[in-house]
């Protein structure tokens, strides 16, 4: 498949989302249309991944050296594949979740953000990535503030404030990079023009740190983490797909692109800014895990858990080793599979049982057996119980930290181990309440009435659980594919 097909692939959902807003369909027809658009996009993406020719597709040039370019390499394929895999089922979940609410605008923006996220995966240079990175903030803002109440507006405000600050820092990084790089676009090992860099190495490394925090804002690295728990007030489909998979992983992906594909790992390894980046990641892992334990609200707790897990990936990335990069991408994929299921369950508790606080989950195991089972399964997976995929990615990250060889690796290992225990505490405790405490409050329903009897919900939960298990069982195969894609040898 020729590479220019990437352009329609990106603009199909964007145009589809906008179009559905303008054309006066019936509500039902509009839903089917948007789902068809999303499915078609996923198919096109899959074709591009498996049959693409790997060339560049130029959108247009702003200036000579500022060009919007799409080019799909191994790393991009992994991220794009993940999005293509999860967006269609997430759309189905959104329909189930929003049943009976007037949410057409919501569906349209949800579809549009797919295109923007894909563009980040396809981006062939830092400028393209940055441009769509900004777009992603804008296109997801209406989704965050969808409820239109005070809390939602405040969350939207926080979201924008953090995003703009982060983007500004990232912009500075990009500016410096564009002055010292070769116009090659992303390539493994970096694109710095060493002749021009000579004499400015130390300054550039500090610029890296600034850009790390800037792009890391979307990946919620300390001190730029606070927006992610704040936006957990958004409707659950947003928290599930965007703030556990698409947006935050775009942040991680951007950090990886900048670290391994622009500055180059060899240039940064062993420097003070690298050490600071590792320390920030380790601190975020532990800090967010502790904060997660302190949350009484399930979605807030899961949001802090995401903060913690995103820093697992950042840690893998800034270890500056090939295995760290591989572990980082493995966790990016595995964490997404697990976290989306956890959020789906949290959303179902919210709409089917009207329960958002962890203490209110007591006794739900009898009322919502399917959802509680799915939650427990995903929780065990996130804790790292083999053979689910959480074990696979954490093991790889541990191995990477071990092989790194300096004190940074040991620090990373310590953080990962302690965080594993903390994870077990914060994610398994709600499951414990579901099964071993009596139901709270009067419900009026007869004993034994189930609240999760819906084939659609069960099918989605099973689909997601099967993915988690399959990714775990196919561990060596997955590792091999990732190594090939990322050029790790």
């Amino acid at each position: 498949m020729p590479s220019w097909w990437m352009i329609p692939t990106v603009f199909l959902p964007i145009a589809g989302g906008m179009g559905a807003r303008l054309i006066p369909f019936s509500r039902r027809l509009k839903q089917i249309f948007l789902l068809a658009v999303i499915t078609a996009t996923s198919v096109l993406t899959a074709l591009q991944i498996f049959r693409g020719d790997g060339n560049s597709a130029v959108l247009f040039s702003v200036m000579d050296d500022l060009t919007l370019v799409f080019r799909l390499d191994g790393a991009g394929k992994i991220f794009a594949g993940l999005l293509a895999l999860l967006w269609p089922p997430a759309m189905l979940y959104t329909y189930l979740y929003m049943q009976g609410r007037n949410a057409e605008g919501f569906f349209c923006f949800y579809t549009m953000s797919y295109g923007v996220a894909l563009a980040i995966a396809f981006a062939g240079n830092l400028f393209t990535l940055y441009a769509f990175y900004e777009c992603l903030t804008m296109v997801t803002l209406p989704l965050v503030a969808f409820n239109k109440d005070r809390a939602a507006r405040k969350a939207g405000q926080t979201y924008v404030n953090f995003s703009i600050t982060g983007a500004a820092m990232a912009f500075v990084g990009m500016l410096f990079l564009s002055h010292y790089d070769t116009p090659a676009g992303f390539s493994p090992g970096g694109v710095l023009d060493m002749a021009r860099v000579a004499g400015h190495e130390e300054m550039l490394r500090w610029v890296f740190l600034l850009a790390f925090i800037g792009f890391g804002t979307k990946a919620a690295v300390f001190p730029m983490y606070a927006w992610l728990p704040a936006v957990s007030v958004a409707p659950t489909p947003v928290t599930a797909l965007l703030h556990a998979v698409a947006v935050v992983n775009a942040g991680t992906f951007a950090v990886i692109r900048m670290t391994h594909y622009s500055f180059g790992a060899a240039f940064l390894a062993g420097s003070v800014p690298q050490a600071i980046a590792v320390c920030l990641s380790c601190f975020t892992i532990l800090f967010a895990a502790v904060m997660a334990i302190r949350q009484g609200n399930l979605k807030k707790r899961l949001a802090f858990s995401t903060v913690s897990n995103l820093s697992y990936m950042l840690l893998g990335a800034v270890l500056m080793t090939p295995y760290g990069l591989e572990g980082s991408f493995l966790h990016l994929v595995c964490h997404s599979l697990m976290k989306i299921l956890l959020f789906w369950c949290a959303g179902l508790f919210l709409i089917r049982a009207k329960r958002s606080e962890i203490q209110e989950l007591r006794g739900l195991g009898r009322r919502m057996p399917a959802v509680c089972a799915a939650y427990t399964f995903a929780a065990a997976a996130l804790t790292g119980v083999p053979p689910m995929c959480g074990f696979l990615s954490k093991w790889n990250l541990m191995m990477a930290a071990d092989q790194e060889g300096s004190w940074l690796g040991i620090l990373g290992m310590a953080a990962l181990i302690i965080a594993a225990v903390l994870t077990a505490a914060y994610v398994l405790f709600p499951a414990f309440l579901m099964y071993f405490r009596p139901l709270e409050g009067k419900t009026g329903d007869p004993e034994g009435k189930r609240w999760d009897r819906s084939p659609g919900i069960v099918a989605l939960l099973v689909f997601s659980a099967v993915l988690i298990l399959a990714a775990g069982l196919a561990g060596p195969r997955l590792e091999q594919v990732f190594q090939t894609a990322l050029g790790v040898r």
Partner: protein
Amino acid sequence: MVSSWYMLIPVLFPAAAGIAVAAGRPSSAVRKMLVSCSLGINCLLLIPVLLSGELEFRLFSLSRDLPVFLKADDTGKFFAALMSFVWFVVGIYSFEYMAHERHLDRYYACYLMTSGVLTALCLSGSIITFYMFYEMMALLTVPLVVHTMEKDAVAAGIKYLIYSILGASLALLGIFLLSGYVTSFSFTPKGVLNPETAGEGRNTVLIAAMMLIVGFGTKAGMFPLHGWLPTAHPVAPAPASAVLSGIITKTGVLGVFRVVYELIGAETLRGTWVQMAFLGLTIFTVFSGSLLAYREKLLKKRLAYSSVSQVSYVLFGLATLTPLGVVGALLHVCAHSLIKDTLFMSAGAIIHQTGKTRVEELNGIGKQMPKVMICFTVVSLGLVGIPPCLGFVSKWYLAQGSLAAAGVPQWLTWLGPAVLLISALLTAGYLLSPAIHGFFPPKDLPAEDLTRREPGAVMLVPMACFMLLSVLLGIFPGGLIRLFSNIAAAIL
């Protein structure tokens, strides 16, 4: 005799039966039928595995060098046979005890699934396989602890979960640290250390060994991570405490056994600080567990402390790194499983029939429930170590093993048997006093405390069965000793 994939059958069959119970929500009679039949059939299904030679079956891989596979060696076969058998008998006992409880679907579903996981755990061919099933077992047994769902039960369940995860994480960290210094993670007699790299990484290997021992020692109730045992046992239903104490603690023992003899190798550890620390921890646990049991007034909690002490006898035997010690340890695994299960089942019968939980309430209990108390007394004598019970044989070997230990200071080889002896006296004190007061009550006891309250045959037969076995095996220990000597000869 059978092809290697057959090993999956005794793993999957009870798990499937458990899922059937959970999904089908059968009536009480059907459930009893289903549970007892599947547990019984499971024991029969295991027989072909026991009779075959060494089988090996690869399931899948977790990561590049982490294959998950089952392997039936002698140690695994012994543990699997013991666990399935005890699981079956205690399962039968539980029907009467649990008759009036709620949420029995959940209880029996987890009970059955745990049985399958335990078989897989025993037949695990590599440490990572073992770890995987170990974690599954920990999660599946939580519902057994929390069963009553009262406040203290839930608190105990959380404590159990925390200790399990802490122990497992420590073990995983140990496995991880070892990864650079081993040729593979599969269990191989005399260990799998890579002679080229293990020399320079000696300290890391020793630290990893200690982490693995303490990590798996958590389930075996070894100090310093013993705290879950005395909390979880009193609040769990009696059949659950019985298997927790008799079987689940033994999974920790199996873990330590595999690590010491089949992963790292006894020769690497002999005479190092790890062996000293391991010996020291076990001796300390043996003594302090007995002492705490002696001071404890709540019967089931007393039995729990007793388990803390007795399982550390087993670990002590493993820590001596001698063939005699290993034989003693494995004998004591067998003895303690049978005996402690009988004790917990007796305690359960007492609670079920009279509601008495404290030791000082048991005056005259021997007049009320003579058959139960005869079982209790006979196995108590066995646990103290009085011939001809199996407890005597095992302790004899343990003491012999300690004296034969090489590479450790002379005084430590003497301290072991001395503490075993003191602990045996304490055991006599804490177990025989309820029996004595039960059979010889004070004269002024009210008449209602002397009426017959014997439980039904469903409870009595399992107890009697274990009691007889523990005595018979004590009289004819030859077969077991031969088996264990073979195991010991292979690994040392």
